[in-house]
């Protein structure tokens, strides 16, 4: 929530150091506008993403998760993104199967030279998550007694 009480989604983006992270940089240096809702975590490869990163993000109340890596054939470590692709395909299917809204968790390929594409991906992911509203599924709530958990920063 911001001060006017309007909800703004918080989206965590796991970006591969060798492509999407540089793509994000390029988007920035090229002054391409994209929504400010993402929080970037730089990872060495999309293959480094443990499904737990994604589940922990949802559990901690983030409204969306994006994982972005190198296009097929362009992995810095040769095949990290291919292995990741198999994992993500299954994980995405499983999460949507239990009821996590389609689009809450997304995956993309963005290379270091694709600043425009990066901005478009963020645009699309953010606008989709805005239509979904705040995440509720899998979010962990701890009863805080009279301590109001949600109101605390």
């Amino acid at each position, binding site marked *: 929530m911001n001060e006017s009480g309007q909800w703004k989604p918080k989206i965590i983006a796991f970006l591969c150091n060798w492509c999407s992270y540089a793509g994000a940089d390029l988007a920035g240096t090229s002054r391409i506008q994209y929504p400010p809702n993402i929080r970037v975590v730089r990872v060495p490869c999309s293959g480094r993403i443990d499904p737990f990163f994604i*589940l922990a993000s949802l559990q901690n109340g983030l409204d969306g998760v994006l994982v972005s890596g190198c296009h097929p054939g362009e992995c810095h470590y040769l095949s990290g993104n291919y*292995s990741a692709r198999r994992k993500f395909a*299954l994980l995405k299917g499983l999460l949507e199967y239990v*009821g996590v809204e389609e689009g809450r968790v*997304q995956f993309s390929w963005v290379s270091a030279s694709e600043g425009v594409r990066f901005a478009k991906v963020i645009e*699309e992911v953010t606008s989709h998550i805005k239509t979904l509203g705040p995440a509720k*599924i899998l979010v962990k709530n701890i009863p805080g007694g009279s301590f109001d958990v949600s109101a605390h920063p």
Partner: protein
Amino acid sequence: MSQLIHEIKEAARDFLRDGEDRTVIGFEQGSLPLQSRPCFIRKENDLERLVWNGFCKNNLAGYLPKRKGKIAIVVKGCDSRALVELIKENQITRDQLVIIGVACNGMIDRNKIEADMDGESIVDVEEGEDVLTIKGTNSSKVFDRKEYLYDHCKVCTNPVPVIHDILLGQRDSNTPQAPVNDTFSDLEDFSALDGKERWKYFTEEMNKCIRCYACRNACPMCYCPECFVDASRPQWVGKSTDLSDTMIFHLMRAFHLAGRCVGCGACEQACPMGVDIRKLNRRLQKDVMDLFHYKAGCNLEEKTPLATFRTDDSDSFMVEP
């Protein structure tokens, strides 16, 4: 049935006579009606304990990881697929094993029978080819065997073990000898539900969970020396019965079994609270088949799908702006 039991005993006897340091893992009569249970036999004198019936539900492959010495193991179709995966994952070697395969007729779900006994305690059971006669404290009831099978037995694609040294109990020429295609028809109705309704269903199921880990410990493929749920640094999953934690435990367990789960139902049989754990595994089995054309435990050569990849795997699920 008694002929089959005799044959199992003889196969086990031959095995025990063949050398030193040998263990037979089979089934014996349990202490209660409708219960058979695992047994470990090392002496010929104890072979009399071996039984075979519709209650030999446990997947004995779970006792194999890192076991030493020669082992003869009694397996059903599904259990044999777990053997294949365990051999591939170097948990046991093929030449340690003498596999006594039994063509399976499906295992009977004790809970389903008990639910239909109107609160009467079960005293005895008589198992026929097609019917079960259950004697309660006051009355006797006849059950159609097929109706009361475990859910996973109802969708079994491979009653005959895929790997075996001795194959027993073949009686019906219609029984498929090799695994047939799984249609996943049991998932259709559920998958057609709205996401919210599926979430509601899983919420109710997971709220029943008491985190006893019987599902994990009964699973032949859950052999990690330290399960993610027991790890503390980092601690990915909380240990309480919080819905979110319980859900993530089951999701991740299912995910770790993707491409490895053979659908033996050991998890669900072990669960004291009747949680529909298999619903998750079934979906992953289906996805693994649809996306990677893989069915766990069917042959010793094929690589586990998450241990390999194809450059032309689909990326249709990804954002394409």
